[in-house]
């Protein structure tokens, strides 16, 4: 039997006539061990951390008594929403939410300018913000981060999560992740310090790519950029088939042969070689961005 709880707070809890009313939030909801938790907030902060109780607890403040706060759900699904009064208001009232969830929870968090911070949550995470910064830790379940201008940072924890990060102009930083990663941006830089990778896909238009990674024996690494530079360092031993091409950028590798001009009539250069025992495959394409490979 589902036990449904619904709490709608639309009036000020601590209001004074002379000052702007503030809603203080302190509410809890019992759940199962692995609930899906959906959170949306426009402005301020969403901080989610895991604990060992089958309870979702929300504390925080909303700096406006006209903003609607919804906290509802059951054992399997919890919804937390902050709804501002109007989309065209000039008021800038933050909603600062600190949320505790069971460690096995999965998250779907969506904000406009509110930052998103997630710690210790082991379920799947889908985190989206327009201009807020997003910070998350990846365990074994998939982590997807999408921003427009906000920065995205994902830290690994030794698990095998598949991680996807997409930004437009925000920078993307991923550290300590192994397994599969897809990182995309238009102008934001990609800074990746990775473990052993089976699949690594990096795409930018003008952002620079700086990646450190260890190639799995059957790993696949692809990097593509129009004008951004691509610098990748691989952990030793490096065993792979490399296919590097740039239309007008330089190609420089610490191992393998020298890059050659594709044609005496065109500026393009390419470099294809097998390093060590092969096995993995590495492909890097740029138009004017420089390519640099090295070991570490």
């Amino acid at each position, binding site marked *: 039997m589902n036990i449904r709880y619904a709490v709608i707070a639309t009036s000020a809890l601590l209001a004074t006539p002379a000052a702007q009313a503030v809603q203080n939030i302190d509410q809890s909801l019992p759940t199962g061990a692995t609930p899906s938790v959906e959170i949306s907030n*426009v402005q301020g902060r969403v901080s989610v951390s895991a604990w060992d109780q089958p309870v979702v607890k929300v504390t925080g403040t909303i700096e406006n008594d006209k903003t609607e706060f919804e906290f509802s759900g059951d054992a399997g699904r919890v919804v937390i929403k902050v709804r501002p009064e109007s989309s065209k208001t000039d008021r800038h009232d933050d909603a600062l939410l600190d949320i505790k969830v069971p460690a096995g929870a999965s998250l779907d968090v969506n904000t406009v300018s509110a930052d998103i911070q997630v710690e210790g949550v082991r379920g799947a995470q889908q985190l989206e913000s327009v201009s807020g910064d997003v910070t998350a830790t990846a365990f074994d379940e998939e982590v997807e981060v999408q921003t427009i201008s906000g920065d995205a940072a994902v830290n690994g924890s030794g698990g095998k999560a598949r991680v996807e990060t997409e930004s437009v102009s925000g920078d993307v930083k991923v550290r300590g992740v192994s397994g599969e990663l897809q990182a995309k941006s*238009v*102008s934001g830089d990609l800074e990746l310090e990775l473990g052993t990778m089976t699949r690594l896909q990096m795409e930018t238009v003008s952002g620079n790519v700086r990646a450190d990674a260890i190639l799995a024996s059957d790993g696949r690494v692809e990097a593509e950029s*129009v004008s951004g530079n691509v610098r990748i360092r691989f952990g030793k031993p490096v065993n792979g088939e490399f296919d590097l091409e740039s239309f007008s950028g330089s190609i420089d590798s610490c191992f393998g042969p020298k890059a050659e001009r594709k044609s005496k009539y065109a500026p393009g250069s390419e470099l294809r070689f097998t390093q060590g025992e092969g096995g993995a495959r590495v492909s890097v394409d740029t138009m004017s961005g420089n390519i640099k490979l090295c070991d570490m």
Partner: protein
Amino acid sequence: MSTVRFGRDERERDPLLRQVAALPQEIEPSRDLWPDIRARLKQAPPDRAPAAGGLSWSWALAAGVAVASVSVLFTWMVVKTPADGPAQMAGVTAAPATALQPVSYGGYSSLGADYVRTRSQMLDLFNSRLADLPEETRSRVEADLATIHKAAADIDAALAADPSSKLLNKLLLSTYQEEMRLYTTVADPGEAGRNKRT
């Protein structure tokens, strides 16, 4: 290619979306195909290489545009149609007077009529939603669109020097996709953007 994201409500209500969600993300071949492919490539005589190469780049580019077009149309339908009535469109306002223009691709592009029409509709939604973004974010998005404009122009100029370049055609296709990814990311502001009460 940008990923179309649905809210949980949509996924649970729509039986087709439930079936789509249940499909595997990818299907691994039963064995590593690369050694055989590599061996065949090495065996193929040079004069047969082009035939073995399959689609020409112009066809590949056209196919890529077609795929992007379908994806964009699908995305546009999703973000255009309110999932729960007024909430979906609550954040939409009139397009700003100085609406941003789509990326103009040069003579080496293969944009079909359907693609251009769908992109135009997507751009209208993008411009509407852009007006709702914080000013700093809006400025950065405008700068990013300018970045894609410049990338397309640079690639087009490079194609003039080497029209058959697989690299440049591949990057041109990626540029189409990045432009669309920008539109869809802005056009669908997510749950928080839709939740503003009017």
